[in-house]
Structures are given as C-alpha cells and as structure tokens.
C-alpha cells in the first residue's frame, strides 16, 4: 500500500518538474505569438534595427552580439581550459595540481555579478587606456571576463572525461616508458576529442546564457559589432534592459521572442551534448565489460 503511494508521489513530483519546463516553453511561445504568427511581425523581429520609439523591434543585433561574445569567450577559454586540464592531469607535481584543481572548483562558486563588478573597475579602465578608444565597455572586455567564467565549466567537464581515459591507458603508456607530457600529448589528448567537444558546447552554452557580465561590461549598444572594441548588447542583457525600462507593449512581445530564441539555442546545445556524451558513455561501459 505504502509502496504504491510513495511511487505515485515521486512520479507526481517528477511530472511537476517536467510540466514546469513545458510551461516555460509554453509561456514564451504564448507571449511572443502576436509577433510570430504573422509575416510582418516576424520580419520586424528579424531586422537589424532596434528603435522602440519608432516602432522598430529588431533583435538581430542582439543575436549577433550574443554569438560574437560567446564565440570570442570560447576562443579565449579553450586553450586555457586545455592547459589547466593537462596541468591537473599529470604535468604538474601533486601539490600544485591539487591546488589548481581546488581553485577551479572554487571559481565555480564566485558569483557572476562579482566577475562583472571587478571587471568594471579593473579591466575596463585597462582596455580603455591601452587602446585609447571608446569607453572600454566593449566586446573584448566582456569576452575576457566571460572566458574566466566559463573556464571552470570546461575544465571540470574535460577533466572528468580525461581521467576516465587516463585510467584505461595509463598502464600501457607507462609500460612504454612515456613521460607524463608524452602520454598527454600523444595518447590522452588525441583520444579525448569528444570530451573536448562536449566541454566546448557546455562552455558555449554557459557564455550564451550569462546575463550579468554582458549587462555590466559589454556596453549594451543595440548594433551589430564590427570590431573588438565595439559596444554590444546580448539577448540576455536585452531582456533585462527592456523589462527594467518598462517600455510599450510591442517591446514586451519582442523580449519574449528573444527568450524563446535563447530557449531554443539552449535546447539544441543540450541535445548536442546528450548525443555526443551519450554515445561516449556507452562506449566506456563496453570497455569495462571487456576487461
């Protein structure tokens, strides 16, 4: 009797979570429907002009801002993440390696708003004075800050993957007389390709989804960026800004469209990680059984 009720209760709570996710999607669609359902509305959203007082609600500049920022942050973070993972996984003596691993985990607990805050007072003046152009609130500043934010996500994912591989190959590599550097460069790194892709997708997703760093240091100009020193506005920052400034009804519909776009991007990335990671996980299990 109790057994049945417990199982039912647990199922209902799981169902509730699933319903919440569906509800988020449903709300976004429902509120952006007035724009999505007709050609004029759609063309209005996917235009490159954002002038709410002139009735122009294009979110293309924000989409471009989001992707250029996330891509640039990924380009900066990727080598760092690979370097740190190699550092932890064998290139450094045990003590520094453990210290850096703890540091990476600690970085995940630093609030996003603090990354943005320190960046405003340290990095922004530095960029402004170095390049002597603009206010320093630009694509480059936010990408550097954001790369620091996504490094831990990438390192943790990559390290988990690499450690599993390492357990499989370490004995063989050592018996061939490979040094840790040789083992990493010629054995571990080449066979962690998929792990690297997963780490990159996760890092990219984190960069796309972040609001505060972009809002605080990217400058928030709704134009398509052309250089690294251009001010940009991301989809996430755009939503925050429009809700805060409380403009007309049409503007509201367009932020729900922006939210829907973010939802779909993240769903796609999640699906990607599941496909790559899933196949990988099964491969690992088959290996175990063979031994």
């Amino acid at each position: 009797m109790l057994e049945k009720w417990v199982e039912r209760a647990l199922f209902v709570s799981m169902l509730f979570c699933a319903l919440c996710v569906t509800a988020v999607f449903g709300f976004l669609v429902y509120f952006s429907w007035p724009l999505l359902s007709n050609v004029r509305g759609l063309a209005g959203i996917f235009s490159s002009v954002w002038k709410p007082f002139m009735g122009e609600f294009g979110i293309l500049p924000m989409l471009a801002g989001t992707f250029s920022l996330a891509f640039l942050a990924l380009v900066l973070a990727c080598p760092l993440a690979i370097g740190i993972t190699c550092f932890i996984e064998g290139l450094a003596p045990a003590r520094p390696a453990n210290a850096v691993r703890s540091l990476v985990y600690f970085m995940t607990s630093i609030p996003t708003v603090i990354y943005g805050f320190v960046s405003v007072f340290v990095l922004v003046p530095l960029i402004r004075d170095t390049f002597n152009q603009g206010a320093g609130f630009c694509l480059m500043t936010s990408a550097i800050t954001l790369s620091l934010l996504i490094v831990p996500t990438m390192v943790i994912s990559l390290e988990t993957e690499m450690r599993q591989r390492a357990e499989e190959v370490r004995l063989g590599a050592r018996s061939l007389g490979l040094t840790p550097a040789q083992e990493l460069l010629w054995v571990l790194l080449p066979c962690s390709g998929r792990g690297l892709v997963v780490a990159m997708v996760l890092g990219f997703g984190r960069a796309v989804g972040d609001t505060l760093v972009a809002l605080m240091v990217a400058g928030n100009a709704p134009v398509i960026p052309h250089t690294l020193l251009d001010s940009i506005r991301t989809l996430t920052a755009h939503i925050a800004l429009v809700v805060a400034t409380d403009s007309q009804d049409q503007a509201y519909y367009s932020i729900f469209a922006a939210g829907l776009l973010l939802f779909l991007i993240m769903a796609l990335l999640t699906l990607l990680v599941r496909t790559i990671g899933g196949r990988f996980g099964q491969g690992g299990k088959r290996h175990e059984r063979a031994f």
Partner: protein
Amino acid sequence: MNVRSEHALTFFSWLAAGITAAAVFILIAYLLVQGLPVMGPALFFGDTPWRAAVMGAEPVFDGIYPAVAGTFILIVCSSLIAIPLGICCGIYLAEYARGPLKNIFSFMVDLLSGMPSIVMGLFGFALILLMRRTLYAHANTSIMLSSACIALLILPYLIRMTQVALESLPESSRLLGPSLGYTRWQNIWHVLLPASSTAILSGIILSIGRAAEDTAVIMLTGVVANAGIPRSLSDKFEALPFSIFYLTAEHRDELELLRAFGSALVLLALTATIFFISYCIQRRLKRRWTMGE
C-alpha cells in the same frame, strides 16, 4: 621536434594555470583591498542602531542590512520549495524511472539545468502578466515569485546530485536491504538514503550557493533598489547581488560606491563559506569511500 612540442605543452599548461590563478588572485585581492576598510557595523546598518535594525523597529537607509536579509529570506524560501521536490525527483530518476520515460524526464532535467537564468526570470514575469490578464488584476512581482523562480533554477542541480549520489552507491549496499527482506521503498528509506545523505547534503549546500548568487532571475521578478525588509511574502525586496549590480551602474557618490565594494565582499564571503562547507563534506566523503567502509 617531438621533444620540443612536449616541452611546449608543459610550458603552456603552467602558463594557463598561472594566468587563471593570477586572474582569480587579482579579483580577490582587489575586493579585499577596496572592501575591507569599509567593513564594520556602519556598512550593514548605516546610522541606525543595530539592535533596532535587527528587530525591525527602525528602517535602515544607508546600510546593506536589508539586502542581506532579503538574500537570506530568498535562500530559505527557495530551499523550502526546491529541496523536497528535488530530492523526490532524484529518487524517482535513480530508483524508479525506467526505459523511455526515464530518458524523457532526464532530458527535461538537462533542459532545465541549461536554461539561462534570465529566461527563468522572464517566465516569472510572464506568470504575473498572465495573472493580471486573467485571475487577479493586482498581481505584482514579489519575493514569493522570486523564490519560486530561483527554486526552479536550482531544482536541476538538486535532482542530479541526489540521482548521482544514489546511483553511485556500491552494489553491496544496494543488495543489503532486499537480502534482509526489505521492500523497494524500505530499502531506499532505511539503507540507500542514509548511505548517500552526505553526498546529497553537499549538493543541497552547493545549490544554496547558486540561490544566493543569482541576479538575473530576481531582476525580473521583484527585486528593487530600495525596499527595506519585506514584511510579507508579497512584498518587493532587496538582495545582495542586485544591489552590487545597481550600485555599480547608478552610484551617486563615493559613499555608495564604497557600499558596493562592501556588498561585493560580503557576497563573496558568503558564497566562499558555502563552497568550503560543501568542499569539506565532499573530502570527508571521498576519504570514507577510499578507506572502504
């Protein structure tokens, strides 16, 4: 050639670790240098006597006490919603769900954990818009709404932590209960949950850290710059991460800027403490498993 690239890799990995460590060091050192001098009762309570401020007898105008209190209320309310729900879902996913249903649910959880926090905030905002149109014309954003949205944000971490904690228990303790004639739920309740309670606890603490730091969700669901301490769950409120953001953008004088530094240091201290508690628990856990029970 080979030797050279191996040396290059070693050098490069030291460089990468060095750059990152230096960046974090600069971040913390800068906050300490700027924030430590303003630490003190005046930062928290301004001119109000602290006893009166804590009791709620007198409002605090130029201190961060209302923001600290708001953050704590937010953490408590969202934990009350998310922790029971998250643990139930985790147990379901680990012990009951099978086949395609498990795949669907687990995809939903992944989707939820990948959701940008601003989208979660937008969801709360939309909820209010809908309520205004249909049921209740005076519905407004509040600490209750923020707590619910934050709960939704930390839910996937709790679910995954519980699920992983249960699934990584050794086979021996999984078979212990049934061999004594326990039913499925008796086994979960008397054997599996106690055995994984430490891991679940560390997951709970980590998710509290997330609830404390998130800014984007509360920005759209009821946080404001000057609200004082909320008297009911349907009031607006202040929170530490938001006041840091707000003061950075809108500070009027040097004093407010100093308050922003103080708030940032307090928030960092809070999340760092939460992190270290969870870290210590996890270390103890690891030792227990490696010593082999």
